[in-house]
């Protein structure tokens, strides 16, 4: 143990965040044990996607924006395809709508299983990686990998491959599976439901740091379904705008030393998107099995208030996604056509969907021939970034007596609890903790 005096000149340097997607750092400025500022810096090189899509046609844009993120490419494809379809007045078949939800289920399962088991859980149990964790907990890690694999299998079935699937097109899909192709998957999904339920039971047993904060939660909210591709943008503090009207409630700005843009509410406050926001706002629209498991776990309040408990929110959503996937498969009949015909029209194509990490907004200005003339993409991590920094400032004093190593670990675990997706945010982070005299 150290006395707080020793920290007057404290200078902690964490060079790069690990077990996050993409490259970024964290710099903490401290004086007399009080955090003056926390800055997530993204040194992930910018790739200028908004410019890359200019002059391209909608289906090309769907292929291109997937490459913003290797972990959640479907989210990018979903926001884009719905934006264009909304702009062009395209009505897709119900079967196509269901398959798109199924695809999102696949991505949520893959992404959440990755985060819960491979990225986040080692923090709770004190391992450097899931591989080391597997030496003591082979069954647990094995279950996580199996779940993750099933998510990928869903994606590969619908999209040809798990990462950067190829089938999402304006109007539907390039190809939709035959009933028979789903059978092998259907059998395995029963296991996924079971493994997801076990995941929630298991994460409920983990110890999370006691840390609570009051935060504005933002997600899509839909009257009948758990939000994925449809709903209004709603917050716990009164924001309620149409799914394409993100700019009515939020704005982006740029801060020095980072290649990412930050988002704030129009009133300049930070907010949180993601599984905790969705679970908190839409608990009553969870799949009955997931809803019941959430109530039984008693973690609903912790999920809303303590960022570390986002791991439970992901577990709840694993159960939701695998349960819903079962329902979709059972009800599946192959759509008559994979894709309906459409014509471009000039206008603004704007839409938000729920990526695994939270609300993902796309806005395209399209000309009469369907070419994109301007684009704006706001990924969930750049929306969460301000909130993460606020939480770091609030959290650090709770560990004032911790050693450098412990503090660093606590900070990293906190950052990881948001599952920051830095490639996406390049629109993110080295952790440097710097004590200013």
């Amino acid at each position, binding site marked *: 143990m150290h006395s707080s005096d020793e920290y007057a000149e404290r200078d902690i340097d964490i060079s*790069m*965040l*690990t*077990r996050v*997607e*993409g*490259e970024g750092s964290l710099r903490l400025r401290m004086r007399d044990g009080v955090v003056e500022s926390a800055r997530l810096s993204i*040194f992930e*090189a*910018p*790739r*200028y996607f*908004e*410019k*890359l899509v200019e002059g*391209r*046609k909608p289906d*090309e844009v769907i*292929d*291109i924006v997937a*490459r*913003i*993120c*290797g*972990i959640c*490419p479907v989210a990018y494809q979903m926001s884009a395809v719905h934006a264009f379809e909304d702009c062009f007045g395209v009505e897709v078949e119900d079967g196509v709508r269901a398959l798109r939800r199924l695809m999102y289920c696949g991505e949520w399962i893959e992404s959440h299983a*990755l985060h819960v088991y*491979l990225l986040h859980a*080692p923090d709770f149990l004190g391992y*450097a*990686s*899931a*591989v*080391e964790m*597997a030496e003591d907990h*082979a069954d647990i*890690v*094995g279950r996580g*990998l*199996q779940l*993750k*694999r099933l998510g*990928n299998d869903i994606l590969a079935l619908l999209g*040809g*491959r798990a*990462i*950067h699937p*190829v*089938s999402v*097109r304006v109007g539907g899909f*390039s*190809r939709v599976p035959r009933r028979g192709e789903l059978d092998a998957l259907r059998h395995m999904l029963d296991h996924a439901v079971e493994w997801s339920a076990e995941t929630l039971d298991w994460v409920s047993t983990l110890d999370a740091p006691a840390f609570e904060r009051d935060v504005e939660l933002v997600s899509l909210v839909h009257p009948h379904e758990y939000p994925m591709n449809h709903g209004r943008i709603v917050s716990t503090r009164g924001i309620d705008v149409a799914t394409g009207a993100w700019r009515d409630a939020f704005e982006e*700005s*740029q*801060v*020095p030393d*980072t290649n990412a*843009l930050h988002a704030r509410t129009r009133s300049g406050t930070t907010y949180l998107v993601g599984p905790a926001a969705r679970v908190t706002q839409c608990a009553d629209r969870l799949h009955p099995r997931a809803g019941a498991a959430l109530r039984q776990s008693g973690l609903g309040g912790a999920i809303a208030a303590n960022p570390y408990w986002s791991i439970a929110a992901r577990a709840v959503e694993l159960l939701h996604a695998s349960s819903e996937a079962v329902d979709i498969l059972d009800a599946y009949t192959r759509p008559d056509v994979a894709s309906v015909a459409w014509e471009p029209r000039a206008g603004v194509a704007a839409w938000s969907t729920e990526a695994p990490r939270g609300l993902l907004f796309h806005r395209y200005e399209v000309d009469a021939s369907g070419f994109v003339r301007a684009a704006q993409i706001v990924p969930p991590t750049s929306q969460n970034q301000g909130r993460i920094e606020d939480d770091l400032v609030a959290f650090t004093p709770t560990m004032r007596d911790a050693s450098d190593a412990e503090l660093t670990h606590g900070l*990293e675990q906190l950052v990881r609890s948001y599952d920051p997706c830095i*490639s996406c945010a390049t629109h993110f982070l080295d952790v440097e903790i710097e004590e200013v005299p």
Partner: protein
Amino acid sequence: MTRGAPTVGVVKFASCDGCQLSLLDLEDHLLEITGTFDIVEFAEATSRRSPGPYDVLLVEGSVSTEEQAAEILELRAQARTLVTIGACATAGGIQALRNWADHDEYRRAVYAHPEYVASLATSTPVSSHVRVDAELHGCPIDRGELLELLSALAVGRRPQIREDAVCLACKRRGVVCVTVARGIPCLGPVTNAGCGAICPAMDRGCYGCFGPRPEANMPSLTGSFLASGGTRADVARLFEGFTAYAEPFRTTVSDLRGRGPEEDADAQQ
């Protein structure tokens, strides 16, 4: 991991993380891989870090900042076998499209304060900077090819990764040619197989994400696209994808657009 096993590092430059995720996506083999190799550096998966040396270094992403251009030189010196993985590392990636454009305009358009953003005017493949021992193509790489690379390294065989045309894989798979049967433009004849002909199997044309194969007959294929009624810009857009900066796609795009990319001036320094 096994003490004394060959050490593996996984690092990234400008990219989406999808290719290194492919390693984690080998779910059924992941623990066997870590039992065969000692993964000493893989920021996405472990908090353990190692500056090298590495028996095998897998590099994802394109070189697009000055720091990256310097870092790749240091990494090369630490790597016995350096393997680039994915379209960004092997061909510059989708972001290499900026090589044809005005970089400053890009920065201004995306960022209100471009002065905060450090990036090179070009995005270039790793092989433009250092010697590369092997390449895995694709956006993203194919998990099977990655496993084959690791397996080949483990037993000392030549990786069974060939630069055949997508058409060969497509026909083996029993997919009907989308160009002949439906008139859909497909880059399969000039693109490396490796994906297993995913796009034609999903009823669409190949978009070249595994990059041009060495013997791509570009004049013949582009001639055929133009003859089928595509405009020069339409045909150019087909190649302006994830491997546009790889020859001969690069020259084809420049010819069709009537302008070339900025040279890899940064890479040559």
